[in-house]
């Protein structure tokens, strides 16, 4: 298997609506919508041997209006050593995405972590609670609007470099 065959397979299974590109590190990036995710992962897992979920994480792009959040999945075919990166853009107003726990048990904590830090709502997740932060925290700290430190502090002002 190589990226071209995989790209053709993905296009076939998403009616050519997925945006695929191969980056300079030979990783196939596939941009899909949230409602395509479950079906695409299903065929990738059962027909193309992507049985290993390497990682789930998210990123926040506040300036991209209507696609402020991106959930990133890394899948790995261990037999043919092929990796693929799926990306799902989500709007802040509708931050829902189906859970992958139906396909991979191990997605459980990865999704809880993503929820904890970005507030992505994984619909159907069996136990969507915070995992690393305390339970009564009322915001999702990795979103870009939250500063690293208390903004009222003055002892760390750097007048020369402004940071």
């Amino acid at each position, binding site marked *: 298997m190589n990226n071209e065959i995989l790209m053709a397979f993905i296009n076939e299974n998403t009616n050519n609506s997925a945006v695929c590109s191969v*980056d300079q590190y030979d990783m196939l990036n596939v941009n899909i919508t949230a409602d395509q995710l479950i079906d695409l992962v299903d065929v990738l897992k059962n027909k193309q041997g992507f049985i290993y979920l390497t990682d789930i994480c998210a990123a926040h792009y506040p300036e991209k209006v209507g696609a402020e959040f991106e959930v990133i999945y*890394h899948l790995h075919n261990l037999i043919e050593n092929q990796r693929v990166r799926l990306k799902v853009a989500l709007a802040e107003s509708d931050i829902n995405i189906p859970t992958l726990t139906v396909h991979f048990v191990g997605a459980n904590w990865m999704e809880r972590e993503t929820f904890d830090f970005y507030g992505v709502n994984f619909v159907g997740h069996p136990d969507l609670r915070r995992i690393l932060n305390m339970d009564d925290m009322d915001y999702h700290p990795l979103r870009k609007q939250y500063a690293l430190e208390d903004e009222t502090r003055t002892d760390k002002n750097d007048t020369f470099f402004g940071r």
Partner: protein
Amino acid sequence: MSELIIKSTGQMISTETIDGDIATLNLGPTHPATHGIFQNILKVDGERILSAEPTIGYIHRAFEKLAEHRPYNQITPITDRLNYCSSPINNIGWHMTVEKLAGIEVPKRVDYMRVIVMELARIADHLVCNSVIGVDTGALTGFTYMFQEREKIYELYEEICGARLTTNLGRIGGFERDFNDIFHAKLNAFLKEFPVNFDEFDRLLTRNRIFMDRVIGAGPITAERAVEYSFSGPNLRAAGLDYDVRVMNPYSSYQDFDFSIPVGKDGDTYDRFVVRQEEIRQSLNIIRQALDKMPAGDFHANVPEFYLPPKEEVYRSMESLIYHFKIVMGETTIPAGEVYHSVEGANGELGYYLVSDGGRTPYRLHFRRPCFIYYQAYPEMIVDSVLSDAILTMSSMNVIAGELDA
């Protein structure tokens, strides 16, 4: 009599009475048998575990948020504190991620030097894990001997970078200095003495009838289940699947070395122990090969924007002064892009997902921490076993609190 209540979430709780059948037991957060801050709320029926609910995050330090505010070279000390039993692997994995994104080619010599350091770190990590399995079964002796050997590895780190535990070892593009003569002398002594002592440790436990009876069948997991849980590293290999990043996606010239990947069969504590024992031998083998084949050349790539120039140069040449200033003030930028790079950490696939917007700090950095991912299988592995097996299972999974909580 105790009575069972099933809550709407499906969680089973019990009313406790002293002579009731089911009791709730807090294993941790700070329990002397769990080497780190792990909390598990167990439901036990006598010695038998009915359910376990892990709570993690007690030493969460927001590394991913911190990383978004730090220049690239200042993120290396953060990676030290992930799996602190094998910091050099984390450091070098991070350097390689940045090099991949910045398009830096390192000399072959750097690759080989890195391989030596990473394999030393793997030995140190596996020694801690395996000797602690011994401690948890009641065999303290092997632990004291193996910690002397780990001390020698720490002395080797000291010769390379000056630090022992949180090493901050190497630089983006290579090393800060070449291996010195003391390092080579100490490494040669280590390669001579360690196998003898290690074999002694091996004889103490591996075929010891008492030890085998204690650990065989404790905390097993099947290969299918391990893959579903995204296991990696020795835990996955002990279950019978030979996935090793060093072989699958060779980095740092691992393709030049001849070594084998041990696999287990049952995925129980004994298999995990034996797989690690064999990996230590393979690591020694790799170190010897790397020393023999060590190419000549420079110990770092020609990327002055990541190297502090020699101090006397800073006073004499304009370029050195500029680079010195940019490195110290963290003004070195990296091209925009995104990259995923993974290395075979001591306990699994350690991945870095890095997004750069072309600035001085990462836009987003996510660590794929192997033990965060496989620790979620812990309840499944210990349910229906006895409490003392749960302790063994945890230590044999090599869950490191720093990496778990990031």
